[in-house]
């Protein structure tokens, strides 16, 4: 069994090994209620990672995801009072449009995606600061419970966040596996020039991929705002690193083309288990960022398809 054939299976093997290690050391970890709780807590991060999957799948990156989520927590907090449930539509639409803007700038104006998304992230940050007046905002508790309370409840011990995540995974899987869009994204990720040469409107599909990424980042922000019952322009800072890690340890390489939604599910669970295990092994929370930084490097190094990069810049 050589390493190349093993590679696609590494993510779930890693996950099982990690769960086993933590489980042996702390049997309490494996209690269903504990596992469900851990899974429920990671959902906002997961949704952001799900969106990032699309951007990375086509060989790009979306560094605006965190700012987008930040902005949406503010938008949701500001407009919940006046718009009620419609604020959700506004949030998702804002994310989708800003994502489209990133995609447009990347594909039509030839700005590399890490710069274009960084720039659009700056725009989102400005909007967040402007709307919030640079303060932390709170939602009206009763109104939040009436409008979005269903998002964060429990049914028979299962957190509702997990149901939301499941629905979104279903939609994304459908897009990836059963639609023209999904096939087109795969083609773009596998070889953009070939895709363009065979008559695919590459730019349109890439713009859509960034738009989906933006919309999912917005949903992540909305859920986060509901959980915390408020928003602020920097409240979701710290999401970007683990979200990128989740996509990459799941096995979607930076070069795109392989991997996908299911990989990100596994990747996010790996991130969740790493986080939880740090708690159990009493590793200081302040070390988390260092650990994830190194995990990120290892994950990229293992997954990246170097045949696609003629020169590594």
């Amino acid at each position: 069994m050589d390493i190349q054939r093993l590679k696609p299976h590494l993510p779930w093997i890693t996950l099982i090994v990690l769960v086993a290690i933590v489980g042996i050391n702390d049997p309490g970890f494996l209690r269903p209620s504990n596992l469900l709780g851990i899974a429920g807590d990671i959902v906002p991060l997961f949704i952001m990672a799900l969106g990032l999957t699309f951007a990375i799948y086509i060989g790009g990156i979306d560094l605006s995801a965190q700012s987008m989520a930040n902005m949406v927590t503010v938008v949701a907090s500001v407009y919940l009072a006046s718009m009620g449930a419609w604020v959700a539509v506004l949030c998702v639409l804002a994310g989708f449009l800003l994502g489209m803007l990133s995609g447009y700038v990347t594909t039509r104006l030839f700005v590399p995606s890490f710069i274009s998304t960084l720039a659009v992230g700056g725009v989102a940050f400005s909007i967040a600061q402007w709307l919030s007046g640079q303060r932390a905002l709170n939602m009206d508790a009763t109104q939040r419970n009436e409008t979005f309370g269903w998002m964060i409840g429990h049914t028979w011990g299962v957190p509702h966040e997990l149901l939301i995540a499941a629905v979104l995974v279903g939609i994304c899987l459908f897009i990836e596996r059963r639609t023209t869009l999904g096939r087109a994204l795969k083609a773009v990720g596998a070889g953009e020039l070939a895709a363009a040469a065979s008559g695919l409107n590459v730019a349109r599909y890439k713009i859509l991929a960034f738009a989906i990424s933006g919309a999912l980042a917005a949903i992540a922000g909305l859920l986060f705002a509901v959980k915390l019952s408020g928003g602020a322009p920097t409240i979701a800072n710290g999401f970007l690193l683990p979200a990128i890690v989740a996509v990459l340890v799941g096995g979607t390489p930076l070069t795109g083309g392989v991997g996908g939604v299911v990989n990100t599910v596994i990747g996010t669970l790996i991130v969740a288990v790493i986080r939880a295990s740090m708690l159990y092994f009493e590793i200081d929370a302040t070390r988390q960022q260092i650990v994830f930084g190194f995990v990120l490097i290892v994950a990229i190094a293992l997954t990246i398809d170097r045949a696609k990069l003629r020169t590594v810049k």
Partner: protein
Amino acid sequence: MTRRLSRETLIKWAPLLVLIALVIFFTALNPTFFSLRNFARIAIAAAPALMVAVGVTFIIVMGSIDLSMEGTVSMTAVSFAFIFAQLGGSLGGLGWVAIPLVLVLGGLIGVLNGLVHVKLKIPSFMASLAMGFVGTGAAILLTGGDIVKVSDAAFRGLLTVRWLGFPLMVYIAAFFLFAGWFIQTHTTLGRNFYAVGGGEDLAHASGLNVTRVRVTGFALAGVFYAIAAILVVARIGQAESVTGANFMFVSITSVVVGGVALWGGIGGVWNALVGVLIVNVIDNGMVVIGLPDFLQDGVLGLLVILAVVLSTDRKMVSFVK
């Protein structure tokens, strides 16, 4: 004899023209903008950013990118504050030793960045972004989230002692700007950066050790980030894990707006200077004419897109990721 302005000439001088136009614009709206006091204010704000921008300029000239500055600046700032305190906390005593030590530390972090990038063959934006996260993480670990004060009067003199209206730190930044210019134009290393950025295959084929040039470039950038860190600590009198926050966005924006092409091979430290001044004049000018400061990131974001668009020869690029 009128000659049509060529695209290259226009692009070369556009950033400087933009800077002059901005100065005239803000002066027209509020004459106090054009005063020594205000220029000193802009210079103080711009000095650390300039050091970061000069550092990353070398990397961008090579056609790579370095996004590790936030982590590196935080890490070196915090290290500086600790070492400085450990050595007596005074520039008059042994405290000055902290400065060379921290410059070396910055260089080592840069070497690490470069090695991760070239040895593991990871694109530089991601390698350096990941290392930046590690750097911020290390700074959090060192401080435990606390603020480390540096209140030595001699060291703070970098900010408080003024010559001709400008504090010492501005002259130090200017000195290192010239050092950067010297490296760029008068050393083999500087020529090699342009060789790698102009065409890596060609540089490699002519016998250049591209790997070594890249790693050295990242090391040099790390040293400049460390200088920036020391200047920041001198300016605000403290170091913490968020000392480097926002440097990434501002410095990349500055360098690109100043006219350094993201594709490599074009531009240099003077572009970095013009870019940093554009960004800081906009920041300062918006405050002076009474615009809210939250618009800055958005304006900078749009500006950077515009700059990349203008500097890209679209016939040359087939697609970007």
